[in-house]
């Protein structure tokens, strides 16, 4: 695991809770809640949502990544929430993450 390796190297890793909903959990083995440790990449001090998305893409998404990402952001129809708040309000891809943040990825539903 990336997190464990990072700890051994003495890099400060961040504990985050990632939640997937609205069907996105199907892309990561139907598990909705993931407690993860993410290390900021070499040479960086802060972790942003841009970094987290590429970490999620590399580490959690097991199938059909095009159902989660489009370019370097999430695909249309996915809401991203950082601590119960739309990431549009915190700077989207540039949102800086803190220890113990909760990030929710949820696909909008259309059924009834």
């Amino acid at each position, binding site marked *: 695991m990336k997190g464990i390796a990072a700890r051994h190297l003495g890099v400060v890793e961040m504990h985050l809770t990632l939640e997937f909903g609205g069907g996105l959990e199907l892309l990561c083995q139907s598990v909705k809640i993931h407690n993860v440790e993410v290390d900021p990449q070499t040479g960086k001090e802060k972790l942003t949502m841009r970094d987290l998305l590429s970490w999620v893409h590399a580490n959690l998404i097991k199938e059909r990544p095009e159902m989660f990402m489009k370019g370097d952001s999430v695909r249309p129809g996915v809401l991203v929430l950082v601590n119960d708040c739309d990431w549009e309000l915190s700077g989207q891809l540039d949102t800086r993450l803190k220890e113990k943040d909760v990030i929710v990825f949820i696909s909008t539903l259309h*059924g009834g």
Partner: protein
Amino acid sequence: TYGGDHGLSSDAIYRYSRQLLLPSFGVQAQSNLLKSKILVVGAGGLGSPALLYLAACGVGCLGMVDHDIVELNNMHRQIIHTEAYIGQPKVKSAAAACRAINSTIQVVEHEEALRASNALGIVSQYPCEAYMKYDIVVDATDNLPSRYMISDCCVVAGKPLVSGAALGLEGQLTVYNYNGGPCYRCLFPTPPPSDACQRCSDSGVLGIVPGVIGCLQALEAIKIASDVGEPLSGRMLLFDALSARIRIVKIRGKSLQCESCGENAALTPNLFQSFDYENFTQSSLSTAPLKLRL
């Protein structure tokens, strides 16, 4: 038979007495409700409880739009319909149920599909009696193009929109186009890839999930109509039935760049009426048939 300052008949006072007793609701809110006109789009899983509770609580004029027929495989969640109505129009069945629980309100049946071509006419009688008719629209449909179309319609007609959705074991709820808040396109300017949607329409739904969301839609419509409480605008309720978790999150406000309600939006009634929502979303207004193998 109406008398007194409050404009409530003695029958209404008795029927709604438990709501009149509420200090934070009371005569004023009930009176507002009795004067309100609410349109529910879709008499299915979400529409069933929404329509029943809106009828029961005393919405003065309750309209419903749907072109579907009651089928046996609706019955596990569409509790407004009885087996006796299988094969008959959902609107006819739903209207009968609403009238049976409250004969004192006006129930209006629109037995047709809501489309860009007829939506303004139904919602606001455009172009005849410009921008009147319903005060509030409840989106209880089950497909993506309808959600864009109804939101745009509400922007053009200037109506608040109570939007609910349910699928599988999850539900979502928010209020659009209310008091300077965002519209559907502010949140979702670009439709999702069509295969992200199609998979959804095949995956079923636990009947009680639209039940919960439909009730909460009725509540939001009641709050707006009666001018009581804080409607769920700029916030979204996310419901996960399996884990019994409900979270209410803060969502973005109105987008200045929104192509529907933004500063330079070019959306006119004519443009709206000719917009091809099925092509825009690459998906169909009518739901795909189910494939079930056991």
